[in-house]
C-alpha cells in the first residue's frame, strides 16, 4: 500500500521536474516565470510531504519543523517571483519582445 506521504512526495517531485522542463523549453519570459512558480509549488509540496514524517518535532503551537521550511520556501519563492516579473517588464520595455532568444544584447 502506498501511503499519503509517498503520493504527495511523488506529486511534488513531478511538479518540480515539470517546472524545470518548462523553464528550459519556454519561449516566453512570462511563461518562464509561471513554470518557475510551478517548480516552487513542487518544492513546497515535497518539503511538506517530507515533514509529515517528523510530526513529533512540533512546537507547543503545533508548528512542525517541515512547516517552517515550507513557510520559508513560500516567502523566498514569492520574493524571487516578484523580482523576476519586474525584470520581465524591464526587458519588454527595453527590447520590445518576450522571446529570450531574441534578447542578445544583455551584456552591453
Amino acid at each position, binding site marked *: *500500500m*502506498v*501511503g*499519503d506521504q509517498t*503520493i*504527495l512526495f*511523488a*506529486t511534488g517531485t*513531478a*511538479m518540480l521536474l*515539470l*517546472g524545470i522542463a*518548462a523553464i528550459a523549453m519556454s519561449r*516566453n519570459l*512570462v*511563461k518562464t*516565470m*509561471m*513554470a518557475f*512558480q*510551478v517548480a516552487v*509549488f513542487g518544492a*513546497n*509540496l515535497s518539503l*511538506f510531504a517530507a515533514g*509529515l514524517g517528523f510530526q513529533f518535532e*512540533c512546537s507547543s*503551537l*503545533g*508548528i*512542525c519543523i517541515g*512547516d517552517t521550511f*515550507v*513557510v520559508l520556501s*513560500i*516567502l523566498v519563492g*514569492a520574493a524571487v*517571483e*516578484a523580482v523576476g*516579473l519586474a525584470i*520581465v*517588464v524591464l526587458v*519588454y520595455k527595453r527590447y520590445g519582445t*518576450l522571446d529570450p532568444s531574441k534578447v542578445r544584447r544583455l551584456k552591453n
Partner: protein
Amino acid sequence: MASELTAVLLSAALIGTALAALFSKKVSNSLIALFYTSIVLGVAFTVYGDALVGLLTMVTFAGAVSVLLLAVILITGESNLDIGARRLALGLSALTILVGVASFSDLFSGGSPSNISDVSLNVLNFAWQSRPWDLLILVVVLSGAMVGVVHLLGGDQ
C-alpha cells in the same frame, strides 16, 4: 489524516492544473490554471492538518503573485482570451462559488467542516468555529476577483 483517495484526487488535480498552466497556448489561460493550482495546493496543505501554510499559500500565490502576473500580462499585451475560453473560465468561477458555498454550508449549523478534522493550530480555530460568514465572504470575494480577472483579460486589446 486524510485518506489515500483524497491524496490521489488532490495529486491528480495538482498535476492536471499544473500541466494546463505550463502547456496552454495562451498566457491568460495559463494564469487562470496557475490560480487554480495555488488554490488546490492550499487546500491540500489544509486537509493534511496545516491550515497556516495553506492559508499562506493561498494569500501569497493565489492572491499577490497572481495579481503581479496579471499586471505583467496586461503591460506586455499578452492577453487575448476568446469567447469560448471566457465562457469556460466563467463556468469554472461559478463552480468555485458553488463548491465554496457547499463546503462551508455546514458551518452555519455550528459544526466544523467534515473534511477538515485535523486542524492543529489553535490560532485558526476561530475560522472553523465562530466566523462562518467571514469565510463565506472570503470565498465570494475570491470568486468575484477571478470573474473580474476573466472579464479584464477578455477585453479587446
